[in-house]
């Protein structure tokens, strides 16, 4: 028995399919949903654990892809828009994990390391330039 954590991103047209039903019935998988946003008129996401045999998890992943569902293995819902960011650095003191940082003080350029990001979403409300957004934040 293997457990894998996934962030699934649904394009508009994929929302509305009975996904969880198929996971349980066709692939004999146990599903534990942590957070989800499913809106028939919009894009959606789901963060979930899937437990089952390796073979069935692999088949389920293929099933996701066939249905246009994007598997975000990095689990990262936060997007930093490099073009919108002007490197003012206002976010730096509000980013607790240093995912947003000025690594070279001679250029003073801001960079984003998504592996350090803990999705606290502080940057979203602290960026005056609207450079940060998250699929988990409905206000954006």
């Amino acid at each position, binding site marked *: 028995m293997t457990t894998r954590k996934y962030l699934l991103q649904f394009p508009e047209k994929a929302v509305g399919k009975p996904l969880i039903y198929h996971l349980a019935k066709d692939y004999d998988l146990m599903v534990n949903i942590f957070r989800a946003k499913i809106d028939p008129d919009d894009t959606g996401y789901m963060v979930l654990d899937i437990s089952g045999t390796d073979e069935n998890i692999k088949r389920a992943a293929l099933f996701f892809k066939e249905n246009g569902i994007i598997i975000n293995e990095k689990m990262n819902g936060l997007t930093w828009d490099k073009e919108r960011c002007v490197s003012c650095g206002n976010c730096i003191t509000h980013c607790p994990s240093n995912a947003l940082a000025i690594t070279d003080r001679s250029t003073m350029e801001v960079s984003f390391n998504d592996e350090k990001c803990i999705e606290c979403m502080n940057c979203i*409300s602290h960026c005056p330039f609207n450079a940060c957004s998250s699929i988990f934040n409905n206000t954006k």
Partner: protein
Amino acid sequence: MKTYEEINQKIKSGDAVVMNAEEIINYVEQKGLTKAAEEVDVVTTATFGPMCSSGCFINFGQSSPKIRITEAWLDDVPIYSGLAAVDAYLGATQLRQNDPANMYYPGDFRFGGAHVIEKLIRGEQVQLFALSYGTDEYPTKEIRTYVTLDDLNQSQMVNPRNCYQNYNIATNTSDRSIYTYFGHLKPKMQNLVYCSAGQLSPLLNDPLYTTIGIGTKVWLAGAQGHVYAEGTQHSSDCNRSENGVPREGAGTLSLTADMKEMDPEFVRGVSFKGYGVSLALGIGIPIPILNEDILKQTTVRDKDIYAQLIDYATDYPNATGKSLAEFNYEELKSGEVSYRGKKIEVSSISSYSKAVKIANRLKDEIQNGSFTLAEPYKKLPPKSSTKSMKIINEK
């Protein structure tokens, strides 16, 4: 000694020697002041940051039948129309109609005048809604349509206060978070925020306004514009270091340029939670190296430029004029300073990397002959101070 005419001749023939205000520091150190002053023709300076006192005059062109607009909105942001028929002024900090502002504190201020300006410069369509009481020669009473920058007859950015010579460093000594135009200031001095390009900033490289004056040509977000007056609250009579560099706010510039020539990378609507909307602008100003003294001023370094630490919880709102400490820009740019034995994180709301980019863009334009210099026809006031408002209770 060089003249503006000589430098412009060299620019036109593609022979001008141009450096940015960062490069010039080491160059003068290596070559010596005298030799460098002979060789270098222009030093480019730049800044990028929020500048609230910005906006633009617009002419929409007439409808048929004609309208004399008395009230108008662009993307639901009110614009000032107490001008001729289809002229208006769109201010950067104007909020969208019905924005709840700080009713649910701290407000988000997602969209305002500055964002409309940014959209126009990006070439996007904005909605015009205009009303009038109707007159014999201007009978139309209501218009709803969409316009782009191309549709406008004129769209002139006219900014009463840009390019602050120096600026405060903000902190918060109180025990609750405060929300300002410096962003979120955490309680008990957990962070400091500054706003200046330091050694690259235009008026810090010409601290006594020798070459930057009224009539000076400037690079305003990619367009060629000029200084049309001293900026509002220009207070040149201030606390200065021995090198003449102000240790506080000091001088400001009023700038204007045609929005149709602007690059959207350098015109950005910004939203400050709890404060409001502002416009971030990129500005470059060339300094002609007419003599050694002018060159010497352009070699100013971050470590020789000081700014005052102001408490935005008490001293700033109450206008006490009190400064808690002063730091130089080398310390500030390191990301951490020490205050009374405590390390404090520092960030900024201006962009040094964008300022470098602008200084280099201006340098390229001067080198390829497309940007020549203009001699100011009038000096900025050298000894002016700012008056406070008188509050008269009875008359």
